[in-house]
């Protein structure tokens, strides 16, 4: 594996000096305080005292740990340890940040502040996040790589990932006479392209068959709505897009793997 164009080996300390890393559950030595821990981390990067101390002080302030900077880490909450891990990953002013599950175990407030921090850091640094929380990925990432059973099954922009999603679930907000809407819905139920149709007040939910082409099915539905003088206020694709796209990808990969295994066994 190459990082910054050079092979990353166990002794490639020069390369790791340019990387800031947070493991999934960062471990902290017992009896240390944020100041002693960050000082230790700074020394592990080979930073001399005149560089280390000012950075340490500004990072402690930046992650809002100044009031507890002299207290043992053992008594810290998950949010505080996560902030300390962030500070430790920034002590060497890295060009590349690799954070493994940075929002894992955080309460909503701490998670929100972590996501904001990621957004602000991403303006000037390259961040690689590993997460199972796809709403976080959706919010802060612009590129994604999907791993399934150790295999890379997708690598590209988040837009590309979402573009691969089967768009077969739509919600339509309608406007018009309730009788006309009911009549139009009855007519739409006759179209075989739709697997599930549900009307709640003036919101129509349409779920297409997997094999159906969404443009022609929706065009038919719009024609029926127009014939019944029902106006369309809005239309949107339903669901957490990144999550759906991810599940789609994994599902397809697993079915391919099953097919391959079945074929090899049959052969």
């Amino acid at each position, binding site marked *: 594996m190459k990082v910054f164009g050079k092979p990353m080996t166990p002794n490639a300390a020069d390369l790791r000096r340019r990387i800031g890393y947070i493991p999934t559950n960062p471990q902290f030595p017992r009896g240390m305080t944020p100041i002693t821990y960050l000082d230790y981390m700074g020394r*592990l*990067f080979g930073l001399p005292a005149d560089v280390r101390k000012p950075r340490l002080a500004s990072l402690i302030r930046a992650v809002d740990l100044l009031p507890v900077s002299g207290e043992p880490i053992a008594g810290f909450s998950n949010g505080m340890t996560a902030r300390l891990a962030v500070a430790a990953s920034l002590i*060497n002013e890295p060009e590349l940040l690799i954070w493994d599950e940075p929002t894992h175990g955080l309460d909503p407030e701490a998670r929100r502040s972590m996501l904001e921090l990621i957004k602000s850091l991403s303006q000037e*640094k390259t961040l690689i996040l590993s997460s199972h929380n796809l709403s976080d990925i959706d919010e802060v990432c612009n590129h994604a790589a999907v791993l399934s059973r150790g295999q890379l099954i997708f690598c590209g922009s988040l837009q590309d990932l979402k573009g691969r999603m089967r768009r077969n679930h739509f919600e339509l907000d309608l406007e018009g006479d309730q009788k006309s809407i009911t009549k139009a819905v009855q007519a739409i139920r006759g179209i075989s392209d739709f697997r599930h149709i549900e009307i709640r007040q003036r919101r129509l939910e349409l779920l297409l068959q997997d094999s159906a082409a969404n443009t022609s099915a929706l065009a038919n539905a719009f024609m029926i709505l127009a014939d019944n003088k029902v106006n369309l206020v809005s239309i949107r694709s339903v669901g957490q897009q990144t999550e759906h796209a991810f599940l789609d990808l994994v599902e397809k990969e697993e079915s391919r793997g099953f097919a391959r295994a079945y074929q090899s066994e049959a052969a």
Partner: protein
Amino acid sequence: MDATGLSPTPKINRWLPYLAVFEFDVRYTMRSWVYRVWLLVSFLAAIGYLLYRFGVYHEAGIVQPASLLISDLLRWSVLGSIALIAVLAGSAISSERGTMADSVLSRGISRYQYFFGKLHARLVVVVGTFACMSLITLAGGYFLLHEDLSFGGSAIALLTILSLLAAVAICGVSFSAIFNSNDARGRYSVVRSVRHRRAFVFSPRTVPISWPIIEQSTADSSRLL
């Protein structure tokens, strides 16, 4: 964003990571319960042994030369300490694998610096502590007991014992770097082999007669002293 275009961190002291691991591990080892148990047990055993010998003198009137007394005390201190030293050295790296080691090795430190930082820290703690305890014993013996202790002999006996303990510590840390933390059987076998003096450096059956082995060197210490 292209990360390669940015400048690397300036002013790096390449020895600082090694020193950081060394200093941290010395402090950490001296705070560990194994180390404290070793100190306490050694101290209590020494006191108990001297009281017993004093009792023999007081009740039976048997006077023993200082060299014999100190030799016995050092021998039993070494044999009693070896298992704890093996545990102390054997837990240096393997116990941190997957936890603290991840946090340390993901920073700007090479595997060599980490290993040697740990090795030297454990060596300094083990050898330094035993040297202090032995020097106190020898000084006490020299001033308080009969005057048949020689300075040169004491120094040779002490150096021999310390080199054996250093060998135990080096083997322990090296095994610790090789074995996985979950490989309890491997670690137990190291401790057991040292405990039963079957490790190759201590066994009179497997090493040349000229090599210093623990039984031989401790048995000969009264002659040296």
